[in-house]
C-alpha cells in the first residue's frame, strides 16, 4: 500500500499549474464570462502541447497512453483556476470513452483529438444540457442505447444561461445517422456507464481544486482584513469556519485520488468510488463557498470581487453529473445490497 503520487505525476501537475498561470491569469476569467464564445483555442493549444488533452489517448493514436491517475491532478489544477474550456469533457470523458471502442471512427477521432485539432464535448440524456456545445468540433451524444459522434456544425443549439457565466450550456437538437454511430446496444450502454463514472471523477477533481482556491483566498483575506482592531482571522468563529471547510476538502481529496486509481486499474468498486468522490467533493466545494462568502462579508457579495466567479462554478459543478444526494443514493444501493455497483 502506498497512497502517494509519483514524481512524474507531481511534475505534470506543476507544469499544468505553470502553464495555466501564464495562459489564464485571473483577469482572463472575467473575459471568459463576458466574451461571446467564452473559450480560447490558444489556451487549448497550450494545454494540448503539454499533453493534458492527449494524456489518455493510446500511444498508437498519438497520445501519451497515461491513466486517469496521471491526469487527475491536472484536472484539479484546471478546477483551481475555474478554467472554462471543456478539458474534462474532452480529455477525461470523451477520450477514454472512444478508447474503449474498437471501431475505426473512434480511433480516427482519438488521433484528431490527440493532436489538438479537435475539441470534443459530451451529451447524455440524463444530463439534459451539453457544456461547450458551441465551441466543440465534435459532440459525442447519446440517444437511447445509441452513441453518436456529431460534427459541431450540424447541430442546432439553444443556449441555457447558467449562474456560472463561465459555463455555456446548451440544449442540442441533432439527427442520428448510421454514419455517425459510434456504438449501440450493450456496448453503448457499457461505455456510457463508464463515462458517467469518469465524469464524476473529473468534476470531483475540478471541485477539489475550486474548493482549495476559495479556502486559500479566504485565509489570505482573513489575515489582512481587520475589524475591531484585529485581523478577522484571529477570531475563533472565523478560525473554526475555515478549519471546518479545510477539513472537508482535505478529506475529499484522497477520495478523488482513490477513485482515479480505481478507474485506472479497473477495480470492481470503481463506480462506487467515483460516486463517493463526487458526493464528497460536491459537499466540500459547497462548504468552501459558503465559508468563503461568510468570512469575506459584503465585499464577497459584490460582483467586482472575484470570489463569486469561483462560488458560482462550485455550485454549478457540484450539481452537474449528479449532486451529492444522487451519488449517495447510488452508494446506498450497494451498501444495502440492492445493487452491485
Amino acid at each position: 500500500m502506498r497512497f502517494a503520487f509519483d514524481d512524474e505525476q507531481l511534475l505534470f501537475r506543476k507544469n499544468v499549474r505553470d502553464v495555466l498561470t501564464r495562459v489564464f491569469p485571473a483577469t482572463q476569467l472575467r473575459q471568459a464570462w463576458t466574451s461571446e464564445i467564452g473559450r480560447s483555442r490558444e489556451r487549448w493549444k497550450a494545454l494540448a502541447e503539454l499533453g493534458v488533452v492527449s494524456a489518455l489517448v493510446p500511444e498508437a493514436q498519438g497520445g501519451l497512453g497515461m491513466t486517469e491517475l496521471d491526469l487527475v491532478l491536472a484536472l484539479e489544477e484546471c478546477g483551481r483556476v475555474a478554467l472554462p474550456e471543456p478539458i474534462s469533457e474532452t480529455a477525461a470523458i470523451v477520450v477514454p470513452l472512444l478508447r474503449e471502442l474498437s471501431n475505426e471512427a473512434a480511433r480516427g477521432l482519438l488521433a484528431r483529438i490527440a493532436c489538438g485539432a479537435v475539441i470534443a464535448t459530451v451529451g447524455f440524456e440524463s444530463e439534459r444540457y451539453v457544456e461547450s456545445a458551441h465551441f466543440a468540433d465534435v459532440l459525442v451524444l447519446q440517444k437511447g442505447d445509441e452513441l453518436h459522434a456529431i460534427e459541431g456544425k450540424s447541430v442546432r443549439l439553444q443556449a441555457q444561461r447558467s449562474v456560472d457565466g463561465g459555463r455555456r450550456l446548451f440544449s442540442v437538437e441533432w439527427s442520428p445517422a448510421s454514419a455517425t454511430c459510434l456504438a449501440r446496444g450493450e456496448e453503448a450502454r457499457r461505455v456510457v456507464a463508464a463515462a458517467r463514472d469518469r465524469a464524476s471523477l473529473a468534476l470531483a477533481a475540478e471541485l477539489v481544486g475550486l474548493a482549495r482556491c476559495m479556502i486559500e483566498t479566504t485565509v489570505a483575506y482573513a489575515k489582512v482584513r481587520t475589524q475591531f482592531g484585529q485581523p478577522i482571522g484571529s477570531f475563533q468563529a472565523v478560525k473554526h469556519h475555515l478549519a471546518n471547510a479545510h477539513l472537508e476538502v482535505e478529506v475529499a481529496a484522497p477520495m478523488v485520488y482513490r477513485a482515479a486509481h480505481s478507474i485506472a486499474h479497473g477495480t470492481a468498486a470503481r463506480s462506487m468510488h467515483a460516486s463517493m468522490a463526487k458526493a464528497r467533493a460536491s459537499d466540500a466545494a459547497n462548504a468552501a463557498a459558503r465559508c468563503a462568502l461568510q468570512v469575506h462579508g459584503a465585499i464577497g457579495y459584490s460582483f467586482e470581487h472575484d470570489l463569486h466567479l469561483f462560488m458560482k462554478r462550485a455550485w454549478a459543478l457540484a450539481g452537474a453529473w449528479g449532486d451529492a444526494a444522487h451519488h449517495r443514493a447510488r452508494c446506498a444501493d450497494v451498501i444495502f445490497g440492492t445493487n452491485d455497483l
Partner: protein
Amino acid sequence: MELDDSKDEIAFRDEARRWLEENVPKNALPSGDTQEGFALHVEWEKKLFAARWSVVSWPKAYGGREASLVEWLIFEEEYYRAAAPQRVTQNGIFLLAPTLFEFGTEAQRQKLLPRMSSAEDLWCQGWSEPNAGSDLAGLKSIASRDEARGGFVLSGQKTWCTRGAFCNKLFGLFRSDPTAERHKGLTYLMVDLGAPGVTVRPVDRLDGDAGFAEVFFDDVFVPDDGVLGTVHQGWSVAMATTGSERGLTLRSPGRFVATAARLVALCKRLGHRGHSVDARLRDRVVQAYLDAEAYRVYTLQTVTKVTSGAAIGAESSLNKIFWSEMDVRLHELALELLGVRAELVEGAPDAIDGGAWMKGFQFALAGPIYAGTNEIQRNVVAERVLGLPRAAAK
C-alpha cells in the same frame, strides 16, 4: 392566550387579501435592483400608498392606518402570500422611519415621513465603509461643523448602500468629533444625494444586479435639520434603528412562510412530473417548512411582548440568526430539488420559475452577513442575553 385572529383582525386580513388579489401585478416585475425595475417598483409603491397600504402601522396623518403590530404582521403575511413586489422603500420605512419616530423633531417628521410613505423620497442606508463593516465603531467619514452656514460638511465614503444608485436620499453615521473614541463622536445625518459634492457609483451584487452603491462625499453640506437626534450621539440613535432592522420589522415571518409553501409546491410539482423526489429530500423540505412555521409562532410571542411594552433588545439577535439561516436552507433545498436545472437563471429557456430560486438563493446568502454578521449576533446573544463575559482582549 388567544391565538386566533380577532374579528377586527379577520376583517383587516380580508380587506388586505382582496386588495392584493386585485392589484398585485400578474407577472412578476423585473428586479427592483435594476434601473428599469426600480422605476416600476416605485410605481407600485405609489399604488400601495394611494390605497393606504404602504405604511399600515403609521399614523393616518403620514399615510398609515394606525394598524396594530399584529395587523402589520397580518398584512405582511398576505403581502408575501400574494407574491407582491419587493419593497424598494424598505430602508426608509423600516430603518429610518422608526428612528425618526423616536428621535426626530416634529418638523422633521412632518417634512420627511409623508414623502417617504408616498415614495417621493427614496432612502438608502449609509452604514458601512470600506474598512468598517460589522465594526461600525470604526467609521472614518467626517462631518465637520460649519457654524457659519449652520450645518455640517461631509467628506469620505460609504459603501454597500443597497439600491443607492437609484435613491435620492441617504441616512448614515458620520464622525463629527474625530478626537472621540470609536463609538463616541458620531452623528446621524440625513443627506440629499443631489447635493453638490456627492458622487454615486453603482456596484453590482454577485447576482449581477446593481444592488449596491458606493457614495463619495466631497465637501457636501448638510444643514442642521439633517441631524437626527443629538450631535455626537449618533451611535445610540443608530443602535435603535439597528435593533429595529434586526428585529421584527424587516423580516416578517410572512416572507418565509410563503417561501416554504412555494418550496412544498415545487416539491409536489417535480414529484408529479415523474422526477421522483426522494424521501430524504422530502423530509428536509418538511423540516424547513416547520422551521418557517416555528419562526412565525416565535414571532407572535415576541409581538405580544412588544405590544405589552417590553423591550426586545438583544433577543432580536435570535430572530436574525434564525431567519437568515433558515432562508438559506429553504433555497438550498429548492436547488437540490431542481437538479440539473438548478443552475439555470433568468433567460434560460428551461429555467423553472424563471430562475427565481437561484436568484433567491444568492439573495438569501446575504442574510447571515448584513445587519451584523451572524457571528456578531451570536456574540450578542451570548453576552447580552446569557450574560457570558466579553473576551479579555476587547
